[in-house]
């Protein structure tokens, strides 16, 4: 017997929703009773009010700006990450030469690089895209490279006996076998993209949710700040869900969904 969809949903997320409600109610109460001043933590309702009040500016302008940076950075990360992973997979020499640089790129704190990017790219979108790229390409390159290496030698040998070329083996064995790992990388990457874009805007920008959050925080408008943070978090969740959906469409085989 299959459970009805609502019951299944309740079973999966019911506890989370219940706890979230409890936290929100307690939070609201703490602020309402004046135990914590509103400029330290705004009540959830005032953050929601701020969100609705500024929704035109928040969603129409700043969310769009952040989304643009995320989209560009994510596409660039995926393209470069996959290309480098394939290059490193096909040549041991390239792997030996490049891998250390890739790891080094992750050890430099982004905060220190951001001013450099602003010097290079100015206050254009590219200084933010550079930060996004630097945070987001690493999970893609590592997961794709590991995924390509995972493929079974036995399958390759079987295809060789059928007269396959190494290109055939790459397309028919290595890519399908690397896909699950590649998608794990994409899921990490898309969340990092939002974080990267926010950091980029925070350190130098004139639009975007990170810029907006910083401006509101220096004006001590905590309710608007929380509203912006909520939008950022929602954005990350929705983008993550989009990748999960794409993964399901591409990887779920009919036999498994029964």
């Amino acid at each position, binding site marked *: 017997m299959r459970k009805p969809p609502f019951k299944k949903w309740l079973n999966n997320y019911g506890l989370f929703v219940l706890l979230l409600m409890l936290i929100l109610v307690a939070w609201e109460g703490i602020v309402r009773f004046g135990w914590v001043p509103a400029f330290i933590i705004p009540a959830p309702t005032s953050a929601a009010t701020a969100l609705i009040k500024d929704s035109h500016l928040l969603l129409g302008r700043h969310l769009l700006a952040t989304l643009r940076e995320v989209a560009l950075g994510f596409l660039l990360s995926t393209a470069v990450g996959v290309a480098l992973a394939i290059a490193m997979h096909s040549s041991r020499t390239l792997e030996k030469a490049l891998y250390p640089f890739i790891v080094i790129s992750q050890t430099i704190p982004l905060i220190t690089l951001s001013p450099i990017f602003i010097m290079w790219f100015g206050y254009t979108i590219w200084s933010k895209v550079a930060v996004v790229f630097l945070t987001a390409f690493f999970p893609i390159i590592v997961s794709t490279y590991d995924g390509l290496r995972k493929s079974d030698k036995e399958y390759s*040998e079987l295809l*060789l006996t*059928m007269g396959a070329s190494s290109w055939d083996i790459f397309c*028919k064995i290595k890519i399908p076998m690397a896909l699950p790992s590649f998608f794990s990388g994409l899921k990490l990457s898309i969340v990092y993209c939002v974080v990267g874009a926010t950091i980029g805007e925070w350190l130098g920008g004139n639009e975007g949710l990170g810029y907006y959050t910083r401006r509101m925080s220096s004006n001590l408008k905590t309710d608007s700040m929380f509203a912006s943070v909520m939008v950022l978090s929602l954005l990350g969740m929705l983008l993550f869900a989009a990748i999960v959906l794409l993964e399901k469409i591409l990887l779920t*085989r009919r*036999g*498994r969904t029964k």
Partner: protein
Amino acid sequence: MGPARFLSETGGSLFVTGGLPISAIISLQQINYSFAQGDKAPIITDLSLDVRAGEFVSIIGVSGSGKSTLFKLIAGLLEPQSGEIRLNGNPAPKRLGKVAYMPQKDLLLPWRTVLDNCLLPLELARGKRRGDKASIRDKLERFGLGGYADAYPDELSGGMKQRAAFLRTLASGQDLLLLDEPFGALDAMTKRGMQRWLLALWGELNKTVLFITHDLEEAILLSDRIYIMPGNPTQALQEWKVTLPRPRYYEMNYEPELIMLRQDLEQQLHAQTTF
């Protein structure tokens, strides 16, 4: 100059080289192989064997005697350090894509349907043999996989997977099939069913088979000849003819003739192995 070639009606070929008529589809002469150059323990030493077109030849031997290595050499995945491998009478330095190889595991690609798995050899031949797609569908039906053409491998039973893998091996269109313990991983009941099935199919296949097995009864029941791989590579490969008439049927297992043969073969094996 290549040897003169006469095609017989059964699809097997007869070859004449230097005045000597041979009809070996595959011929190994004094093959030596070890995993590393100059390795002290060679896997295969001075091994020679011939398989004629249309024959069913089994290779038995203890684990680690190099049976699977021998298959990889024949398939072209490995090259011998010395010796010659001839296909259809010609020296064959490039054998990949000319011999069908079915490894021990079914190795069906889990993201492809049964039909797409069986079509893989045709895809790799790049449309040179397009007409065969319909015949694969037909064969699926005859292999008892008719309703499973669009199923994925994880929906099949062990026996069905093995049949699908066998059909994929046939789909390569090669005359020589190397079957590495195809029934080895199956339970006893399924294995018997598969032997019965292969015997019934054998008459119309018109293929040549080299078959690795650990099962003596299976080897006797299916083969025309049996090669016994020595446990120690310095000893010679032994040839053993199966004197049972064809067509064979599964019930021969219970006949005294086969039981005698089995006893004889077992004695041969024991004479070779020291425990």
